[in-house]
């Protein structure tokens, strides 16, 4: 899957191919499960809630990120697009997530990412969760300004940064 990820990043393989590879890997792991130590086969790398913030209907980039995270071994809860900010908080509580990913494709909806971080702080949840932001108008400088843990430029970077923060 690491090799598939590199080829995806280089524009040589695409989403359907990544999913086929992930499916093949899951099937392979299922076959080997009996020979693996208990828990090793089904252990997820982390639990991530991912969505596009309220007011923003863009879906495609966020979905690619969700798919890549899922195929890399994370448990991903994609809560869709135009997601009311409170829903991020509720889903984090419900799934006991380690990380939340927030996408915004418009400068007008970008502040939603900041608001969720503020809501996490208000509810005393901020220390227990990593925050990743992305989307066309998001930048590293923006991530630093609002106090996110990381910014990812694309889906491949989202996977590598999630691994850096959660493993």
């Amino acid at each position, binding site marked *: 899957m690491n090799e598939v990820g590199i080829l995806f990043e280089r*524009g040589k393989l*695409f989403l359907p191919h990544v*999913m086929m590879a992930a499916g093949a890997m899951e099937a392979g792991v299922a076959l080997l499960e009996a020979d693996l130590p208990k828990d090793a086969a089904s252990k997820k790398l982390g639990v991530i809630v991912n969505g596009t913030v309220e007011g923003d209907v863009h879906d495609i980039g966020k979905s690619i990120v*969700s798919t890549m995270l*899922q195929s890399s071994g994370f448990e991903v809860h994609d809560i869709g697009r135009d997601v009311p900010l409170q829903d991020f908080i509720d889903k984090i509580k419900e799934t006991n997530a380690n990380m939340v990913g927030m996408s915004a494709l418009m*400068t007008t909806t970008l502040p939603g990412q900041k608001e969720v971080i503020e809501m996490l702080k208000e509810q005393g949840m901020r220390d227990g969760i990593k925050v990743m932001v992305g989307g066309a108008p998001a930048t*590293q*400088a923006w991530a630093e300004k609002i106090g996110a843990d990381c910014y990812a430029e694309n889906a491949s970077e989202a996977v590598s940064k999630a691994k850096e923060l959660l493993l």
Partner: protein
Amino acid sequence: MTTEYALRMGDGKRVFLTKEQIMADLEEGSADAADLGGIPALSGDEIDKLAEILMTPSRMVGVEPGKEVPVTHDIGTIRIDGDQGNSGVGIPSSRLIGSMMHERAFGADTMELGHIDYSFKPVKPVIAQEMQTMEVCQQNMIVPLLYGAMPNMGLYYTPDGPFENPGDLMKAFKIKEAQESMEHAADHLTRDTVWIMQRLMASGADGVNFDTIGAAGDGDMFASLHAIEALRKQFPDIYIEAGMAGELLLGLHGEMEYDGTVLAGLWPHQQAPLAAKAGANVFGPVVNTNTSKTSPWNLGRAVTFVKAAVKDSPIPCHVNMGMGVGGIPMFETPTIDAVSRASKAMVEIAGVDGI
């Protein structure tokens, strides 16, 4: 003390770089494009010229006399009036006034009429208004006025459209179903685009600008190329600009073909001949800015991609320059120092025919 030059990161932040750092980043950016696209990196002379442009002490720069190119402005019709965080300046004005200001005050050589939603699909319910506005604009303007919108195939998926969302299907490992959904959406997008342009051509439009082709992946380009082909057949004199969404055509479907070429994974120099084959008059290459890299890195990379596209394109290339594209920082209102330097580089080194 070593001289440092005030430049920018891809997110617009100020950085101060020495000549050596600028040269190194230019070379690295160019090498990245060459590696990904399988195209030549810029020569030593070209890197020197790029560095010279970046290090010019003036706040803004321009092309050498005699090298001027045509410029146009997408959705400029609402750029004056717009004030919704979209880099508009919030001066109350109609779309006609916006167009005429660009034509008569700002020096735009062509313009386009665009709708605030700026995708083809939402134009359908307001087609009568768009037709009337096009007619009024044409009666008042001299420069060619196109109609512009984004193909934006994502609008045909649930919850906006009739077809199941391939993103959801893909996550459920329903790959075949996801591909079929994209194929259905592409057919509808082609049909809608042609229908809309038939009416706008009846209202006097000079042509159409496909803005951000491929934003929803290879299906988006598949649909756009077929729409271009159909429009060229129906209107032999229509002026068609095919502008892209990014340097790499994402393969959300992965297997769609046009004229025997798999669309997924095409780079600008491979996209241009297909746009020409379909019937476009002008190809608009786009290279997205990496916000974590410096402007020399981004500009070296963008110029390398666009130069290869210009070389391989049978039709003129009008490069897309602005917020987060063409080596320009991702900034709400891009700064003039970055815009003018990147534009000069695109004209004098990449050899573009227009902006």
